[in-house]
């Protein structure tokens, strides 16, 4: 495997850190505005990130498949 591709395949695991960054500092999202469909930011941000967590795991799997 060429070195550059090996780096990409390893680096894809960094995507798995995104949900931790999004969730573990509540100071970033603990507010009311902006609203979305009547939901305060605190709630829709966290619900949105459930979907994005799922997508980042999916992306890691897909990037792993490209390698083979």
């Amino acid at each position, binding site marked *: 495997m060429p070195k550059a591709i090996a780096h990409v395949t390893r680096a894809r695991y960094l995507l*798995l850190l995104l949900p931790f960054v999004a969730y573990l500092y509540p100071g970033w999202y*603990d507010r009311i505005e902006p609203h979305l469909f009547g939901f305060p930011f605190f*709630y829709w941000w966290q619900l949105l*990130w*459930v979907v994005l967590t799922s997508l980042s795991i999916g992306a890691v799997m897909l990037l792993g498949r490209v390698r083979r």
Partner: protein
Amino acid sequence: MTLRDEVFAGLILLVSAMGFVAARWGGANLQRLDEWALGGRRFGTIVSWFLIGGDLYTAYTFVAVPALIYGAGALGFYAVPYAAIAYPFGFVVMSRFWTVARNRGYVTAADFVRDRFGDRSLEIAVALTGVLALMPYVALQVVGMKAVFVHLGGAFATGNGELALTVAFVLLAAYTYTSGLRAPAAIAFVKDTLIYATVIAAIVIIPPRLGGWAHIFSASSAALAARPKPASILLQPQLAVAYATMALGSCFALFIYPHSITSVLAAKSRVVVQRNMALLPVYSLMLGFLALLGYCALAAGIKTTNGNVVVPTLLTMFLPNWFAGAALAAIVIGALVPAAIMAIGSANLFANNVFGEFTPRRAQGSAHLSKLLALALLLFALGFVVFVPTKYAINLQLLGVIWMVQIVPAFVLGLYTRALHPKALLLGWIVAMATATWMAVSTVTSTGSLSPNITFTYWSHPVTAFIALYGLAINLAVTIAATALFSLLRIRRAPDATSPRDYS
């Protein structure tokens, strides 16, 4: 009997029958441990998705999370980040564990620790942690069922719901004994279909009748602020650390609980495990909306001191009669599925890693002992709820999460490195278990009830954080220091029974 009660009773009978019939699924020899306990490690993506989802998202979760939101506001929403970040963690750790377990025939986490470190006492410590943490969790499933029976009233509530509870539980114990993991796997389809239908119906029907989400949030905000002990729909800044540490600490515990291990190991390939980690967050999304039913209850003006009745009351208030029957059945079935898997998971630990270590000649791969123990554990849990006040089950379950995290160094780090000395890991575990339990018990004197969080003052800033993470920090510090000491003293350690290719 009303239509609601008939639908309810019919569904419970249906899943009980499915539990017994499941023994024939795949036509395997159920006397073999990996057939009885792990369904022959043959489940594909879809079966695993229902099974793991049905296992992790228990009835107690469905009742307790909205109850917490109803009682404490924003803090209760920590279940959502927790149930999201557990998946990237599980994706990395559990797919590695699945592989080594498949290659070496492990059924429990303690099986792996025994081979990896060659240390019987560490194996027993890991096994006992799992059993101790799970027993109150099984008991809480019974509590969830009891709440529904009492709410239904009539014949179901005979003897404070204990008659119906006993019938449901004896049936559960019987089909868990005969069918093993195949029973909850089959029932999980019914459970999750009902739960999804209920949550979607609740989300479609209830908010518009209460004037829409914007109004629900503002009404909840007002109701929480008017409490004798005011709460809020936003997190008070002094609770931010508690919120984040509870999410992170619980995330470490989720997949290393014995029942999670049981249902993950039942997958047929590593890719099935990985795919499920990407797909299971759908359940977390549902949990998030379900949690918000706690605010719907506030907006609907439901007033109670027992938060556990909030969801059943709300469902009966807003859903058509027959649908309410199905929804209440979903909660009861939602308790049966995890209770069966929890009994199987802890029975395996007892049979393989505790009793097995003390009997010279054990029947390798036989399910006999595990089956009897699963039966005994379920009956014990029933007795626990009938004779011991609910408060103790809840407190013990809180302690359970804190305890479970203490096997992270031996089990999770053990999957990647053998650098830590087994006796040091044991020492770290002992110190952390004792200190963390003491911390939790000491919160009773300061807050009046057992709390998962403790407040320390650092440079005159009070910080409230989850005790499980304090335990883990102490655990790691002791383990690392003792490893350094033991290697200086050249204390011998057993070789690794696994080899690098077992992991890939």
